[in-house]
């Protein structure tokens, strides 16, 4: 950083990632794991119920998200109006989550309503009734959102990327069409629910002050009589029909911008390069001062933002760069991204730049572990992908020890131009 005549700036202390220790795990009597994340202000608790019931477990497309959405649309004991009324009376927030590899429910509740909220959560998670009328309304609403998504360049480009990466018939890669909504029935959802929404296929996190107070209630509702024995989820291998690299164009009529996505098949969390690749991607497009932000936004002014991410599902990893640009600049944008990557493949990054990335990443990790609710979110990725309780310790170690030579090697291995998907969604 620049020295100045006035003797400023103030001295910067090297940021540390802080305490990234994994929270304790308590087992209910049926073996169900409950992670307890303490501290935080009085009066509020966050309880998340996570099932191995994500998109990857679907035999019928849309079953995962639709089953999840229908949980609060009526139960064996209460119709939709009554169950929602009971939930809302507690003042708690119930949010549905349905992702590629997990699905469930997040509840945030006043501690004094904990008893009611856990009992309502049990009711909606294990005893939904999937009424036909609410099912039809849910489909209509989702169909509207789906049709709106057809006109969004960012949505279309994302779909094309996962389709290319995973294949048309793979649950991660399948692209939704209107007929998928028409053919979906409540019996598909009942089957999906019966197989996967069981105590044997889930874990729970409790975050907030004195989280152990939830344990007797959870034991009672999630491990008592008639509740299945927990066993570690078996992640069976999946078929991927990965497409050949190259340019993919997706027409979105009347759009005033185009979404540009450049992506590669990446690696999974168990690969020795996974953490190093996180650092490389951060440097390329993971923060405001990254190579791509500086070039494409701050120098060229082509876009409001450009980002790069490396991640992984079960069995497959991905690397992706994404941005929305004026239609007239999309070719130039692709060209500039290629140039930036080529530079990183040829030249070592400077120690100064690496130091910025290092310090920034330490701050990011510290923020991820700042407060019990944040920790609950941070550990979800670790538990879902069995990434190891020392995941963040290893990450910190990698960030501190990675060399410019290794970063160059990573760009040469994983960002090869002949292996890239270049996706453009916009007008012809």
């Amino acid at each position, binding site marked *: 950083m620049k020295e100045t005549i006035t003797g400023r700036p103030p001295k910067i202390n090297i940021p540390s990632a802080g305490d990234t220790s994994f929270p304790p795990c308590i087992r209910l009597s049926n073996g169900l794991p409950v992670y307890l994340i303490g501290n935080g202000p009085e009066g509020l608790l966050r309880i998340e119920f996570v099932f191995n019931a994500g998109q990857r477990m679907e035999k019928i497309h849309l079953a995962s998200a639709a089953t999840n959405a229908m949980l609060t649309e009526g139960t064996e004991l209460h119709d939709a109006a009554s169950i929602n009324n009971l939930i809302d009376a507690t003042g708690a927030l119930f949010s549905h989550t349905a992702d590629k590899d997990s699905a469930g429910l997040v509840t945030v509740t006043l501690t004094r309503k904990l008893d009611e909220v856990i009992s309502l959560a049990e009711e909606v998670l294990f005893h939904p009734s999937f009424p036909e009328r609410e099912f039809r309304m849910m489909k209509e609403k989702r169909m509207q959102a789906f049709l709106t998504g057809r006109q969004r360049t960012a949505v279309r480009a994302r779909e094309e990327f996962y389709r290319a990466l995973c294949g048309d018939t793979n649950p991660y890669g399948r692209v939704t069409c209107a007929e998928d909504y028409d053919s979906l029935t409540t019996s598909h959802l009942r089957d999906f629910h019966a197989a996967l929404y069981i105590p044997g296929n889930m874990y729970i996190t409790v975050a907030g002050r004195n989280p152990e107070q939830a344990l007797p209630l959870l034991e009672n509702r999630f491990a008592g009589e008639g509740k299945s024995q927990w066993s570690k989820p078996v992640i069976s291998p999946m078929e991927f029909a990965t497409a050949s690299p190259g340019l993919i164009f997706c027409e979105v009529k009347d759009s005033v911008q185009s979404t540009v996505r450049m992506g590669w098949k990446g690696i999974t969390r168990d690969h020795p390069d996974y953490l190093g690749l996180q650092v490389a991607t951060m440097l390329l497009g993971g923060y405001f001062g990254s190579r791509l932000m500086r070039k494409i936004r701050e120098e060229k002014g082509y876009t409001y933002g450009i980002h790069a991410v490396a991640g992984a599902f079960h069995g497959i990893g991905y690397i992706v760069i994404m941005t929305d640009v004026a239609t007239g600049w999309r070719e130039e944008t692709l060209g500039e991204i290629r140039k930036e990557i080529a530079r990183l493949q040829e030249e070592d990054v400077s120690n100064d730049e690496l130091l910025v990335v290092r310090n920034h990443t330490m701050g990011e990790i510290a923020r991820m572990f700042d*407060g019990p609710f944040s920790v609950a979110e941070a550990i979800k990725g670790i538990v879902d992908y069995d990434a190891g309780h020392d995941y963040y310790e290893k990450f910190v170690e990698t960030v501190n020890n990675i060399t410019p030579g290794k970063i160059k090697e990573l760009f040469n291995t994983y960002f090869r131009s002949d292996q890239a998907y270049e996706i453009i969604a916009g007008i012809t």
Partner: protein
Amino acid sequence: MIRFERHTLENGLRVIAHRDEGTPMVTANMLYDVGARDEDPESTGLAHLFEHLMFEGTREVPMFDMPVMMAGGENNAFTNNDFTNYYITLPVNNLETALWLEADRMTGLDLSEERITTQKSVVIEEFRQRYLNQPYGDLLLLLRPLAYRVHPYRWPAIGMDISHIEKADTISARKFYRKFYTPSNAVLSVAGNVTPGEVFRLAEKWFGDKPKAPRRRRRLPAEPVQNERREITVRRRVPSAQLIMAWHTDGRNSRDFIVLDMLTDILAGCESARFPALLVREREIFTEADIYLSGEIDPGLVLFSGKLRNGTDIRKAEKAVEQELRRLSAYPVTDAELDKARNRYESLRLISHLSASNKAFNLALHELLGDAEGINREKERYLSVTASEMAETAARTFLPGNCSVIHYIPEAQ
């Protein structure tokens, strides 16, 4: 209860310090009392464009983000019609870096032709990305000039039109900077594990030598009372129709604001609220139906926004909303509904107090509204709202003549 201390520097900078011992991070939140409402109607969007320029470096710090990243921090900003807010969150032992940076860019900005040209281009892409390249994205661009005739809320913070952003230049940017980026026009709010004494010492050290500028008085034209219903219909390439209705109401500090905030929560704040329960689930007129306050400091709007179920007539849908609002006098809010809203308010309030950065911003906002202590009085104000008060306010607010309506219809229909 959020404990804090306040101190005003000689030059008028208001400083607020809140100690939160539960976090390793600290947030320095810098709120400038300038927003799109302070713009010239002929060159709107300048406040927001200026926010971008604040990240473009100074003589002393050529790249604003670098020291923030080096210190393990993150930072961002946003501009709305009322104010511009900047924040830096970093490890507490690097607080001084944040204050140095904020002090430096308050007066030392490098407003070169080149930087302005690039950021104009970035902002134009932001305009396209957020408002033009999204289905339904231009709704609020349409609503403001319909609902407001005089008050500067008639344009959005991004600007009235891309051409306004295109014509911004160094002269207008420099003038804007001198006029609005002064100590007396800002509130600095710091939350984290640091004592107020230390915050005030550092604030004095970094901001103390900034020249004093007179505190500005804002003189904005008041929006005249609306006495006739306004309606526009637009056709767009969207899959289903959307109905927007907007009524004028009072400003952020008024009792009406609190009453309507509670009332809109009862109408649409959760799945069992009146609109989702009756207009979506029971009568199947909409697939989504929401009502909320626009939230501005000067007199703002209550907005209804509903996605129509395919095949529903938009005029019938509008009637159904009006009917539901009229029903508030015959069927006032029940004790159960009020209880629900109070519990929900309490949950949301605790959630908003979870992060130090949120508290830092909210303290600064309340100071801008007149008194940071307002953050601790709010709970009482919300919990004291009664059913009869809601019915009375609703009857005064939801008048047909006070309403602006947008029928946003698919092209094919």
